[in-house]
């Protein structure tokens, strides 16, 4: 997923006509001072760290500045600060406003209903998880019909707004729906949607773009989410790679089989540290890449569990044999291979010729993996 920073979300809001404060992004104290000096921004300002984690207000990632001296100290204090797992590199500076009311508005996918779900609440400004269920208005939005006028009236009634905010609401709702559909969003959330001087104003923006829609949203291609460097490298090679807390490396094909493999290992006391899903491939080179990636993670033992379908057993065997010749001596790891399915016999022969005996029983293989774990000497690769 591509989680957009607040300022990027607000940039999108602005493009779709959702009112936002007139703010600017800065990456240095000098930039912030210059914006005030040339009157682009006028004190007092709110300074917001552009991190993706929630709870910024309580965590010191949102502060106010009323004087040039305060601005300097707040900006220099916040830039480079560690907030949860993120380092603050960008700040959003916005005029401080007098907030009348705080509302909540979002659209996300409801998988069960197979429909987008709009959620609105008159009690915004807190995380939705902490809102009481009876305070939430839920409206399933049909993708063909969009938001109907009567549905917008329901939201209006839930918010209980006065003019002019009440008159602005329809436009905001239409725009949020358009952002959700046209930007291929998984989530569009405005929390709070504030009333300021009687007008609606989006004081925050949380927009998550779906990965699979990347082919038509190249503008987001430079945004990294919370992947580790190895996860990022794997992604570039089209391999699903996830780092967990243990030491065992798992290479399997298919998400379900990979998860089942982890479950079976856990049953026998094994702690998976990295798993790598080959997906469907008939390219031995991709399998080789997978093993080379795995070696970089310095696993205690590697469990290869393949059920051959699109990814045939012989393809995997060839890729594995090629990888073994390329992995440097220092990165070698014990290996347990288990293959079943398409071209199983051929795969078994190829591995045998390279001195690798492939097993076929899943349970016995998992037990062999746990037994083969080597003690960890060199330590774990940095996550």
């Amino acid at each position: 997923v591509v989680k957009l920073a607040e300022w990027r979300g607000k940039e999108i809001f602005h493009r779709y006509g959702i009112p936002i404060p007139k703010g600017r992004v800065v990456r240095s104290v000098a930039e912030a001072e210059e914006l005030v000096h040339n009157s682009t921004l006028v004190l007092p300002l709110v300074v917001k760290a552009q991190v993706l984690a929630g709870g910024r207000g309580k965590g010191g990632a949102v502060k106010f500045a009323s004087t040039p001296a305060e601005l300097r100290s707040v900006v220099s204090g916040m830039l480079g600060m560690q907030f949860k797992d993120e380092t603050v590199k960008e700040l959003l500076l916005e005029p401080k406003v007098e907030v009348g009311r705080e509302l909540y508005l979002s659209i996300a996918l409801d998988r069960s209903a197979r429909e987008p779900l709009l959620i609105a609440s008159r009690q915004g400004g807190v995380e939705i998880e902490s809102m009481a269920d009876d305070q939430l208005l839920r409206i399933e939005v049909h993708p063909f019909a969009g938001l109907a006028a009567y549905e917008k009236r329901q939201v209006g009634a839930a918010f209980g707004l006065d003019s002019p905010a009440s008159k602005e609401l329809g436009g905001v709702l239409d725009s949020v729906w358009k952002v959700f559909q046209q930007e291929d969003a998984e989530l569009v959330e405005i929390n709070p949607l504030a009333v300021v001087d009687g007008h609606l104003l989006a004081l925050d923006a949380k927009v998550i773009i779906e990965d699979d829609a990347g082919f038509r949203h190249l503008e987001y291609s430079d945004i990294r989410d919370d992947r580790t460097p190895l996860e990022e490298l794997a992604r570039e090679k089209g391999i699903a790679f996830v780092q967990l807390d243990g030491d065992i490396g798992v290479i399997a094909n298919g998400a379900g089989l990979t998860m089942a493999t982890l479950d079976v290992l856990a049953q026998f006391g094994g702690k998976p540290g990295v798993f790598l899903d080959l997906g469907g491939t008939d390219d031995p080179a991709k399998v080789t890449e997978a093993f080379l990636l795995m070696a970089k993670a310095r696993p205690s033992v590697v469990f290869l569990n393949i059920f051959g379908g699109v990814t045939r057993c012989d393809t995997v065997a060839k890729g594995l044999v090629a990888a073994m010749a390329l992995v440097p001596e220092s990165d070698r790891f014990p290996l347990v291979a288990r293959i079943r399915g398409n071209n199983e016999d051929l795969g078994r022969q190829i591995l045998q010729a390279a001195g690798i005996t492939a097993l076929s029983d899943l349970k016995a293989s998992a037990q062999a993996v746990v037994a083969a774990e080597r003690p960890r000497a060199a330590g774990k690769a940095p996550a």
Partner: protein
Amino acid sequence: VTVLVDAGTRVVVQGITGHQGTVHTVQMKQFGTKVVAGVTPGKGGTQVEGVPVFDSVAEAVAKTGANVSVIFVPAPFAKDAFFEAADAGVSLVVIVTEHIPFHDMLTMYYYGRLRGVRIIGPNCPGIAAPGKAKVGIIPNVVFRPGRVGVISRSGTLTYEIVNGIKEIGLGQSTCIGLGGDPVVGTTFVDALPLFDQDPETDLLVLVGEIGGTAEEEAAEYIRHSFSKPVVAYIAGRSAPPGKRMGHAGAIIARGRGTAASKLSALQAAGAAVADFPYDVPSLVAQRLKEVGTR
């Protein structure tokens, strides 16, 4: 009558000239499926593995009587391929393609409903009824005709379990891989009544995974409306919360979609729950014995 595909199934392969399209055309034919046509715009008039290729699905349907389509075209073009199939009048479309944006899938799903076209998938292995027809990519070697139905959200894990059923000497009536994407054309709840009504299915194996609430909803349906014995397995019991486990759907978020919640719902619905994939076949045999069918 079986579940969705049978000896009368006539398949058109959209994207037949692509590598996967060609490979699986051969496999489907070897399974005994009537693959009657392929479609790749601009390649009409050629042949792939003895199957005539047409420029459009409408032409393929008109000339060959195709009634089921399988889509192998890349994700950016999948929506258009589906519209074409639905407009040409096929009744079932199996979408193998992965990484289709869910916004596209929402559009396809509702368009399919308007046109009376069922979708299996996307990002799915498809459907197979041994001895009758296979539409999709499940390896032929795992099947043997029999009376166990299988529905699953996974791919290779399904193969693993179907193969296990074969290895203890039982066989399958129909097996459907629904796909693990956030929006799928056919859910467990959509598929359950088909197996309940199928005279060739004695028992159903349900293979789920963490994330979402599809298994909980299936359990609710089974409890109230499903008359046959069910054996269930859920993958991902050891998965940590918040990590995306490969399938877009396979994530435990905000405490929802855990293996524990799915397992207890299925148990409460009377399903026999297997702890691990290799426990499924013996549970199937045991349940069949209990109900006195074969």
